[in-house]
């Protein structure tokens, strides 16, 4: 599979602050690649260099085989990439249809305006002025403007911020459909659920460096990390009565960690059934993508027992 984005040893400083300090990654054709990281980690700077908005200090960058730092190829690059950014806006007095039709005229091979309006779920609002749109509708218009040029590569900067849950799900479906059609997507997000749902590959950036890269399932050793089993022990029994080593957790809970969840669960449930009781509020967890993310980006990681979503 050929690479649509190649970044090698990318560096960028603002004065004495190293915003990006040697970032390398690649994005394959047709992939959805998510860049995660706290504010100020170098995520936006990296994206803006890829998009041709900022000059880099060092390293190699290739986007669709072009160097985004080369002004001579700027127009060609912009013919082939689409951008949905946080801090961009549309003329407030144009209507939805006019705003999209205007941008369509800038591209060699634009998508059909009316089809696109339907695709981003703005049908019926064609004649509404941009200033009268709700936040979520404006964001969907942004998405349409990012896609109007029929791009090979689409950059999405926190694409569903401000969406309600159902609008978010339909936006995800739009992005998945784009991938089906062969579009490569590079996105940033603060919603781990979004990365989990959409991304084929995830990279976590912190202090200007990539601290981990993988699939949402195996990032940071998520797939091989220990499973945490927790429950409220039956009344009258103490941790010492249990057939496994356990430590006290939140409230009345006890927690045990294991590499062999099947065997451990069997021992626990067998123990409980034989005593004619139950393991109340039983949960079996692996660290969520959010747990892994927080571990990777936070220097003083929170207590293990307070984290985790039920699998």
């Amino acid at each position, binding site marked *: 599979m050929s690479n649509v984005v190649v970044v090698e040893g990318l560096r960028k400083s603002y004065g004495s602050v190293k915003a990006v300090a040697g970032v390398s990654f690649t994005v394959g054709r047709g992939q959805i690649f998510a860049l995660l990281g706290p504010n100020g980690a170098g995520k936006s700077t990296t994206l803006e260099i890829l998009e041709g908005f900022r000059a880099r200090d060092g390293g190699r960058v290739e986007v669709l085989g072009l160097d985004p730092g080369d002004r001579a190829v700027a127009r060609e690059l912009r013919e082939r990439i689409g951008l949905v950014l946080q801090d*961009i*806006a*549309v003329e407030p007095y*144009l209507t939805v249809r006019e705003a999209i039709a205007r*941008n369509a005229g800038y591209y*060699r091979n634009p998508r059909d305006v009316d089809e696109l309006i339907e695709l981003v779920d703005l049908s019926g609002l064609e004649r509404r002025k941009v200033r009268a749109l709700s936040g979520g509708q404006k964001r969907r218009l942004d998405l349409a403007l990012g896609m109007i040029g029929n791009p090979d590569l689409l950059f999405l900067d926190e694409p569903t911020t401000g969406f309600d849950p159902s609008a978010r799900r339909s936006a995800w479906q739009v992005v998945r459909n784009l991938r089906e059609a062969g579009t490569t997507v590079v996105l940033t997000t603060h919603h781990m659920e979004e990365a989990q749902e959409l991304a084929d590959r995830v990279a976590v950036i912190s202090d200007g460096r990539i601290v981990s890269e993988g699939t949402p399932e195996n990032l940071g050793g998520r797939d091989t990390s220990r499973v945490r089993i927790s429950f409220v022990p039956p009344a009258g029994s103490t941790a010492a009565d249990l057939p496994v080593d356990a430590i006290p957790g939140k409230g009345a809970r006890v927690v045990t960690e294991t590499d062999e969840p099947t065997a451990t669960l069997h021992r626990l449930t067998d123990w409980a059934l034989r005593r004619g009781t139950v393991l109340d509020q039983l949960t079996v967890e692996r660290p969520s993508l959010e747990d892994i993310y927080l571990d990777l980006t936070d220097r003083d990681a929170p207590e293990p027992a307070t984290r985790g979503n039920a699998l």
Partner: protein
Amino acid sequence: MTSTVIQRAARRDLTVLLHQIRYEQLTFWRNPQSAFFTFVLPVVVIAVFGLMFDGTTPSPYFGGLSALQYYVTTLAAMSVLGSCYSQLAIVLSTRRQNGILKRVRATPLPPWMYFVGLLAHCVMVSIIDVLLIVGVGRLYNVPVPSAAAWLPVAVTLVLGSASFCALGFAVASLIRNAEAAPAVVQFILFPLVFMSGTYMPVHNAILENITGLLPVRPFNQALLQAIGPDGGFAWRHLLVLVLWGVLGAAVAVRRFRWDPRPE
């Protein structure tokens, strides 16, 4: 072979350019309130001056012109200032702050086409304003410039609008936030216009020497000479005007930013 490729690219560029000019116009006319005041303000001002100075005869105080001939000319110059310098500076800094310029930058539209679209708009507004002012002047029997005056008038208007557009770009490049833009624009323009004889002729050697080196008075004087008894081109004034335009363009080229949050 190569020449047909170039021809096709040129034709495509022309299509995109016309498309951009059209949508720049649409953007303007879609905001009817702003469109209304752009054209009504100069009409109101010249109508009021007409009521004040109707029927006065040519006098040396007004450089050998009647008061209304003088004001039709300086207010026409003023409307070019407004539609080129003020409008560009405010529109560009507002669009930058809102992120509209960055969105344009994210598309393949070449920057020069975006600017030509805006300049075409400023020139269009200038032409309409000048025609409206001359038209209202006609109602007060201010004569339309003689055929001999048309060439110097046209050249002066073209150079003036080019220079003030460049200065509008320059100020937009230097202004940091859009809230301050109208205030900064007026702060620069108002005293300058006042001292440059737009609202009353200035007959003071010190003021004339100072404002003669700034952009507004040379524009006024070049127009006044073109329609006046002597007629012709006011070369020295036009030179000062063009030098300001070049300076404005140089600042704009070096300092113009698309991004609301520059590095």
